[in-house]
């Protein structure tokens, strides 16, 4: 198998009813559904448009609302022999511009809502790039010869997509995935989850993250189906459970915070998601009390803990949890997927003794070739395996782990300032970079309180603003300006929960901002 489109094509040959709905969801135009047959038709039309425009093996941005059509656009880009950069209508313009500047796409595919967003951007794009509505692209006549030609020249090392994740310098970094790495992931994940044509997924993750691979490509491979759950339902968990039951959703792969929200708000006492039989969770630590509530509600369901960084395409490790846990225990991340190896390395690049901590490093076909247009970061994170005497790449995750007595792996903590918040990977430096761009702010420092998952921003005023006489009213006004600035320029999940203005930021004896002291100060004030 060379190309991810083979999943769709084989399914179309095999399923009894090609008009089975593959993806269902809603956008501002209401409920939308696409069958396998329609996905193929839209994808081929879009692919023909791309090849006929003379675009070859180039990045194409797909900037649309989360919907089945966005998935059809992904497939269209692949049919066209290119790779996609998924962007979301909820992303702030600042971040979208940073991403577009990095990839310089040949085409931006949008929909009715996002084309208005583009029209409203006050800063023009820094390069010339065609913008076209997906509904227009789909009217293009199929060019079967051109589509076939694309496939003859395709290899499995070709990129499939680039997704952007928070970068430690403040600028998002693009992780490249290949057809090969995604096929490797889908083959192994579907075995672990036991996916079949009867699987009905309830997708929670945004389509601009690699987390959505779990539902998108497994659905294509097995002729299963997936509901893209409207984000608003996660505010009203009893309604969310009703949605699961009404649509017969039996498999979910959610970030732990989404499962936690349902349990924590008491929804499992008010309603039971009785159609669910497989619950996979990951991307952050699942509080044990919430996990136990789920397990007690659905004693016959399978609970699978997944772990893995975007750089190793999707997930890398799994553990099937078969019992309730004490609150002082942690659920293992278990064992690597088949065809993936996990190596723990200590600071001397040696394998620590069992039970001792080491950095989790990953080896296998699942590895990304690296970051888009960023050799420096690629070389730093994708290193030569110190245990091999031949060229052999491993990815250093920055996560610390240890092996338990049965050989299963446990996650311990991060090595750096990266945090996980609502399932999103966030570099606090990126929050600071955006905050420092605000005129009123002289210097900002972001800390994370993991006891309540609050991102907190401390800042001092810029000289020009601080020079003016300050009273309480003007301070309040400045704080309000800072807040709106952050709202405009940061993705929602990166927005600080609290912001505090200080006369000066505390420093360590070495001259760095004292983050530990700021965090202590925050925790004390909250008591």
């Amino acid at each position, binding site marked *: 198998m060379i190309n991810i489109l083979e999943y769709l094509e084989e399914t179309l040959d095999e399923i009894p009813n090609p008009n089975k709905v593959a993806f269902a969801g809603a956008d501002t135009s209401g409920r939308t559904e696409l069958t396998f047959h329609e996905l193929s038709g839209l994808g081929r039309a879009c692919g023909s448009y791309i090849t006929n425009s003379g675009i070859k093996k180039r990045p194409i941005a797909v900037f649309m609302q989360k919907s089945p059509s966005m998935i059809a656009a992904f497939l269209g880009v692949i049919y066209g022999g290119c790779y996609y950069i998924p962007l979301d209508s909820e992303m702030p313009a600042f971040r979208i511009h940073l991403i577009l500047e990095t990839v310089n796409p040949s085409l931006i595919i949008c929909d009715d809502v996002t084309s208005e967003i583009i029209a409203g951007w006050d800063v023009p794009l820094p390069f010339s790039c065609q913008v076209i509505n997906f509904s227009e692209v789909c009217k293009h006549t199929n060019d079967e010869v051109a589509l076939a030609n694309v496939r003859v020249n395709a290899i499995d090392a070709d990129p499939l997509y680039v997704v952007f994740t928070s970068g430690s310098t403040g600028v998002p970094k693009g992780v490249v995935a290949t057809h090969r790495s995604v096929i490797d992931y889908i083959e192994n994940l579907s075995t672990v989850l036991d996916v079949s044509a009867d699987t009905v997924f309830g997708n929670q993750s945004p389509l601009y993250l690699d987390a959505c691979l779990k539902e998108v490509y497994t659905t294509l491979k097995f002729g299963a189906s997936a509901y893209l759950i409207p*984000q*608003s339902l*996660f*505010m*009203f*968990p*009893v*309604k969310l459970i009703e949605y699961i039951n009404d649509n017969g959703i039996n498999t979910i792969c959610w970030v732990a915070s989404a499962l936690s*929200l349902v349990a924590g*708000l*008491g*929804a499992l*006492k*008010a*309603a039971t998601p009785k159609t669910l039989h497989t619950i996979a969770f990951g991307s952050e630590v699942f509080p044990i009390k919430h996990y136990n509530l789920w397990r007690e509600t659905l004693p016959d369901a399978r609970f699978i803990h997944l772990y893995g960084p975007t750089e190793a395409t999707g997930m890398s490790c799994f553990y099937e949890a078969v019992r309730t846990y004490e609150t002082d225990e942690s659920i293992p991340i278990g064992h690597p997927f088949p065809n993936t190896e996990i190596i723990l390395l200590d600071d001397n690049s040696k394998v620590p003794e069992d039970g001792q901590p080491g950095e989790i490093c990953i080896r296998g076909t699942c590895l990304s070739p690296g970051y888009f247009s960023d050799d420096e970061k690629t070389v730093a994170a994708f290193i030569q395996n110190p245990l091999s005497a031949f060229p052999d790449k491993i990815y250093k995750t920055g996560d610390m782990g240890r092996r338990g007595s049965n050989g299963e792996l446990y996650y311990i903590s991060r090595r750096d300032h990266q945090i996980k918040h*609502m399932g999103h990977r966030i570099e606090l430096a990126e929050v600071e970079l955006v905050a420092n761009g605000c005129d009123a702010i002289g210097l900002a420092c972001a800390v994370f309180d993991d006891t309540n998952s609050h991102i907190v921003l401390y800042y001092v005023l810029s000289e020009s603003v601080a020079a003016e006489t300050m009273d309480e009213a003007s301070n309040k006004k400045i704080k*309000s300006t800072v*807040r*709106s600035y952050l709202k405009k320029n940061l993705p*929602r*999940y990166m*927005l600080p*929960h609290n912001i505090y203005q200080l006369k000066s930021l505390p420093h360590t004896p070495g001259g760095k901002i004292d983050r530990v002291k700021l965090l202590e100060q925050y925790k004390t004030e909250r008591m």
Partner: protein
Amino acid sequence: MSVLLEILEELHDDVDYSTHTTLIDDNVIDSFDIITLIAEIDDRIGVTIPADELVPENFNSYAAISALVSRLDDDD
């Protein structure tokens, strides 16, 4: 100012809560806010909102949230 209004102003100080009646429908209050809102109402007003009261109608306006909190407070 009522404690509830204080909590809401802390979430969004640019919203006129006296007139806004589509806080949920217009996505002014989102899923991040709802979690904070429920936690703060519990902490500062001492009212726990049960899951079956978590429906859009109860959160679309200041008046609706206020009515919900009073009703639950009376039930105690």
